[in-house]
C-alpha cells in the first residue's frame, strides 16, 4: 500500500510537474514549495475524481439525520481523544468538560448518536497532538503538503503520527476489513463537512496553493492559542502590516 502511494504520488509529480508560478515571492515557512505544489495538485486531482464524487454520493444516498448520527458518533469518540490532549496541554478544566460531553452523549445521546452535550451548553473542542506540541513550545517547522491528508507542517506531521497511534478506532477494531470501512467512513464524514469549502477557496483565492498554505498556518497558530489573539496583535493591527508579520514568526 505504502509503495503504491509513493508510486502514485511520484507519477503525478512527474507527469503533472506543477511549477511555482512566476513572480511568487518565496515564503519563509515553505522551503519545499516546489515539491509541496506537486503533492497539492495530486491531492486536488484525487479529490476531484475520487473523494469528492464519493462524498457527493454519500450525501445523496444518506438522509441528513443518518449523516448527522454518523458524524456525532465519530465526534463522540474524538472527544475522548480531545480530552486526553487537553490534559497534556495542562487544561484540566476543559478536559473535564470534554469528559462530561462524552458521558452525556454516550448515555443520554444513545452511544453518541445525538450530541445532547452541545444542547446542555458544553461546547465541543478539537485538540490533537500537533496542537499539544505547539502548546509545549515546538514551532511549526516547514510547511508540508501530505499526500491524501493535505496541508500540514513538520510539527503537525509528527503530531499526526501520534494521533493515529492513539486512535481508539484504529486499535480497538481488530477485524481489518471492518476497521478499514470504519476509517473510510470517518474520512468521508470529515470531507462532507467541508464539501463547500473547495469552491469557496476557488472563488476567493488568487492562487489556491498559497492561500490554503497561509490560511492553514494562521489557523493552526490560532488553534494552539485556543483562538485567543496574541497579546500584541491588536496594537499592531493598524500599524504597518509587514512589521507585524515579521514579529509573529518564531
Amino acid at each position, binding site marked *: 500500500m505504502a509503495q503504491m502511494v509513493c508510486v502514485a504520488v511520484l507519477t503525478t509529480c512527474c507527469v503533472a510537474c506543477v511549477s511555482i508560478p512566476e513572480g511568487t515571492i518565496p515564503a519563509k515557512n515553505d522551503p519545499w514549495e516546489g515539491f509541496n505544489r506537486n503533492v497539492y495538485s495530486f491531492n486536488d486531482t484525487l479529490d476531484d475524481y475520487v473523494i469528492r464524487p464519493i462524498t457527493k454520493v454519500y450525501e445523496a444516498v444518506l438522509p441528513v439525520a443518518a449523516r448527522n448520527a454518523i458524524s456525532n458518533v465519530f465526534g463522540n469518540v474524538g472527544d475522548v481523544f480531545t480530552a486526553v490532549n487537553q490534559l497534556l496541554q495542562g487544561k484540566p478544566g476543559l478536559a473535564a468538560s470534554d469528559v462530561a460531553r462524552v458521558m452525556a452523549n454516550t448515555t443520554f445521546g444513545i452511544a453518541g448518536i445525538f450530541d445532547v452535550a452541545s444542547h446542555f451548553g458544553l461546547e465541543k473542542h478539537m485538540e490533537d497532538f500537533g496542537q499539544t506540541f505547539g502548546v509545549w513550545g515546538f514551532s511549526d517547522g516547514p510547511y508540508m503538503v501530505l499526500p491524501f491528508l493535505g496541508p500540514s507542517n513538520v510539527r503537525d506531521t509528527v503530531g499526526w503520527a501520534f494521533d493515529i497511534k492513539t486512535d481508539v478506532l484504529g486499535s480497538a477494531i481488530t477485524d481489518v476489513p471492518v476497521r478499514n470501512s470504519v476509517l473510510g467512513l470517518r474520512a468521508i464524514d470529515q470531507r462532507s463537512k467541508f464539501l463547500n469549502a473547495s469552491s469557496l477557496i476557488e472563488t476567493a483565492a488568487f492562487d489556491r496553493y498559497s492561500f490554503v498554505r497561509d490560511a492553514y498556518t494562521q489557523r493552526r497558530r490560532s488553534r494552539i492559542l485556543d483562538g485567543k489573539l496574541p497579546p500584541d496583535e491588536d496594537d499592531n493591527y493598524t500599524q504597518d*502590516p509587514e512589521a507585524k508579520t515579521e514579529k509573529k514568526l518564531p
Partner: protein
Amino acid sequence: MKNMRFTFIPFMMQRRIMILAMMLMASVATSHFSYAQAVDATPDGLVKFMVNDIMSSIRSDKEIMSGNINKVIALVDTKIVPYTDFGRTTQLAMGKNWSKATPEQQKLIVTEFKTLLIRTYAGALTQVKDQKIIFKPFRMDPADLEAVVRTSVIDKGDPVQLDYRLEKVGDGWKFYDLNVLGAWLIEAYRGQFNNQINASGIDGLIKFLQDRNIALAKAK
C-alpha cells in the same frame, strides 16, 4: 358674538401651537429614540442585527434556499455591504503595496476586490440551512475604536469559528475583517496581493481581478 369670536380664535391658535409643539417634541424624542436604537451603535449589536437579518432573509426565500447565487449577492449588497469598509480591508490586505498604486488604481482595486469578496460571502451564505449562531460574550471599553465580535456557527455538530473585526466610523461601527476557522481574511490575502503584484504589477493585479470577476459572473 363678536367678543366670543375674538376669544375663540386665539384658543384655536393656542391649540395649534400646542399640537405643533407636541409633534415637535415627539419627533425629537423619536429621533433620539432611533439614535439609541441605531443598528450600528455598538459592535456586538451591529453583528447580531446583521447576522440575524441575513439569516432570516435567506431562510424565508425559497429561491435562495434552492441555490440562486445572484439573489444571495443582491442580499449581501443590501444587508451586509452598508456595514462594511471594503476600502480599509483592501488597504490593509495590500500592505505596503497600497502606496504604490495611484488613487485611481486604488479605487479600481477596491471595487474589484469588493466584488470578489461579495461573491465569496454569497457562496458561503448559500449553505445557510438550520445552523445556529452563538454570540460569544462581548466586552469593550467605551473609548475603543476597534472591536472583535466573536461568534460560533454550529453546523453539523462542529462549531465553526466566525469572528468580525470592526472599526468605529463616526457614530457607528463598520466591519472590515473576518476570521474564519482561526484565519483572518486580511492576513490570508496579504501573500496573495504580494505575489500578484510582484508577478505583474499593480495594473496586472487589476486585470487579474477584473478577469476573475468576469469569469465568475459568467460561470453562474
